């Protein structure tokens, strides 16, 4: 039996510990906001937070989450109030939307670590996340916008 916290709720699961966290989130816990894109940590669509760090859940065995805290896109905010979500709406970022959960989860760690990121910081933090639709220019703008909101104390 594996036990960990997902989006502030404790879960206890009887599951093969080598199963990637991604599939446990999606299939055992019904949290399908986290996406499968490549299965080899190349695209970032599956990015979640494990004890606050961005991890690629497609290659992280669920055993790695034992006793830890996982946050998925569903737990980023209860009501779209996270500055990044508000900035994503303001910049009309998503196209197909499939990669955006991972983009947001990567960006959330970046903003926590670097509340005023430079373009280079954004390159560094976001280069692991592929977007086939090509929303990169808007993601960049939205991250800067969210950083601006946080400085002005507009954060929740």
């Amino acid at each position, binding site marked *: 039996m594996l036990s960990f916290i997902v989006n502030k709720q404790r879960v206890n699961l009887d599951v*093969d510990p080598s*199963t*990637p966290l991604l*599939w446990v989130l*999606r*299939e*055992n816990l*019904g*949290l*399908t*906001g*986290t*996406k*499968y*894109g*490549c*299965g*080899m940590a*190349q*695209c970032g*669509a599956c990015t979640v937070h494990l004890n606050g760090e961005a991890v690629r859940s497609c290659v992280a065995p669920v055993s790695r989450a034992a006793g830890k805290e996982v946050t*998925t*896109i*569903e737990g*980023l*905010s209860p009501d*779209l109030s996270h500055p990044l*979500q508000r900035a*994503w*709406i303001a910049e*009309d*970022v*998503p*196209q*197909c*939307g*499939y*990669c*955006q*959960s991972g983009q*947001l989860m990567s960006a959330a760690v970046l903003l926590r670590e670097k509340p005023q990121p430079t373009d280079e910081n*954004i*390159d*560094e933090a*976001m*280069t*692991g*996340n*592929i*977007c*086939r*639709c*090509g*929303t*990169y*220019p*808007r*993601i*960049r703008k939205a991250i800067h916008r969210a950083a601006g909101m946080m400085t002005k104390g507009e954060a929740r």
Partner: protein
Amino acid sequence: MSAPRIERREFLKFSLAAGGGLLIGFSLPGADMFATAQAQSTTVFMPNAFLRIGTDDRVTVIVNHSEMGQGVYTALPMLLAEELDADWNKIGFESAPVDPKYNHPVFGMQITGGSSSVWSAFEQYRKAGAAARGMLIAAAAQQWNVNPATLRTDSGAVFDGTNRKLTYGQLAEAAAKLTPPAEVTLKDPKTFKLIGKPVKRLDTSEKINGKAVFGLDVKMPGMLTAVVARPPIFGATMKSFDDSRARTMPGVRKIAAVPSGVAVIADSFWQAKMAREALHVDWDDSAMRTFSTNQMMQQFREQAKSPGTNVRREGDPDAAFAQAAKKIEAVYEVPYLPHAMMEPLNCAVDLRADTCEIWTGTQFQTVDRANAAKIAGLPPERVQIHTTYLGGGFGRRANPQSDFVVEAVHVAKVAGAPVKVVWTREDDMQGGWYRPAFLHAIAGSIDSNGNPVSWRSRLVGQSIFAGTMFEAMMKGKEYDPASVEGVDDLPYAIPNLAVESHKADVKVPVQWWRSVGHSHTGFATECFIDELAVLAQKDPYQFRRALLPKHPRHLAVLDLAAQKAGWGKPLPKGRARGIAVHFAFESYNAQVAEVSVDDGKIRVHRIVSAVDCGRYVNPGIIAAQLEGGAIFGASAALFQEFTFENGRLQQTNFHTFPMMRMNECPEIETHIVENNEKSGGIGEPGVPCTAPAIANAVFAATGKRIRKLPIRMTEAV
């Protein structure tokens, strides 16, 4: 996820009205928007197939095109809301079921493709909104006992001269009793409040909180998950398989042969995938065991030495070439390319004795339903397709054989339970249906004044229509129009011009890929015109201008892009600009790329893209499509190819098939030419110019010509 978010009574009412009884256990696109409101809503007014109005004032627009990133769940509701005079804050959307009433008005089937959603819906959705508005006004006139001509509408309500007000929700019940008008009058475009404005997308919220349901997210009670072991080489057939170990693995329910390979069906994806790895399949791969793209391109080069089928001929280009003052010949090559949508293919099927319910992100509902019905052994009316969000499409999810849908129905037949077939990234990339590789040989010449006198294009590549239901589109033609589109209408004034096409007999499955033939003809023609400009010692922008006297719309985008990019103005040391212009899908696009080349490595710093797509609906979405188109085009120009050796595809995942990433992404600036021409497309027209603009900029920076994609400085000439 498993709780229905659409109130079931509502949904059934609608779906029965739309012709197919169905039950779903999760929410389809748009349903989450009104998660709470919908529960109390009572739909009473559905004047036509395209909208419903509830007593709660909610207006739900039923969208007959698939949302794959291009914004149809916003643009089409805008068209309808405009004529309805709806309150935009009360607008929602829903994907249409498959039904002839949702057919594309020009293509005659339910399809999302050809960059045609907005122009094909332009009148259809406006008329649907106008008809509803007329009925709401009539209902108000009855209630107030006044002449309808004295009433006006605004923001979801009808007003009389004294500003008495009845909202559409209040009028819904009465309006539902009226007969829809036979004819409607549409607004004067000058009075548009929504159309032409950068309205925010309606689907953003559910795409940033994890609630949007893509095909891969579909879940039904008792559903199993399957992966299929498919041939490692195209054309291979299964001889036998050994599942003695695989079938004992945890969660495995069934392993069975299906026409496309061997299906491994399990309780969960990971269990199915693990079991597939333990499966041993013996394939007969003799058909293409020796196939290599290197050899194929060599063969294409040989083919291009002889005349092909005539596509277009003016004057005598061969004679003019022979006599010309200056001449060049160039051979351009582009590789096979996969669509590589971020969401790999998948399809969920619930097959019962007399019904077949399919949940998938498809661009091709009518064709999928017909193909699925054949496999299910049911009449098409008993097959329903529920279109989820598409995690990218780019043409792949409109497969003439419905490959991913048909296979899933086959798997459902052996599964004996609802089942979702999931493709891994590797399955998706190796599964075929690529943009065909092309070779395009051009011979051109100029006179002593530097004016072009001849151009002869010879293209060699596979037909995407041959062998499909669309072969009829080639009727009377010895060539595939999709192979030569974009060069068969070369706009430049050149007195002696020929376009010839050679068929390539190769068995790699090929298909339309964002911008189709334009994806390679744009590259070859816009690089070659640049080569002619340099041969003539003229500025590439001015050289093009002089050859477009009869093409004012080409000129307008070319001028706009050049002006906004600062064409001719000094750049930082090491940087250079390249330009390209192209017409595709009824729209005109020009791009200027700014690049530098350092130690063989190309950096694209900036792309300026100008479009003329006629009357437009949402400039915000147009900008997004141009940005995305340029990045899609730049990925292909700089990084991407699919190659085969010994029959085997050499690329499997994003480590061998790279995408442009954030750190490589240029600044992109977009501009729209304002006019009132007929609407053109926007999803694809922004792709073709990117590769030639970059390649021409590389030449300007280095003096080296790029004739092969992806660009490698070691292969530059």
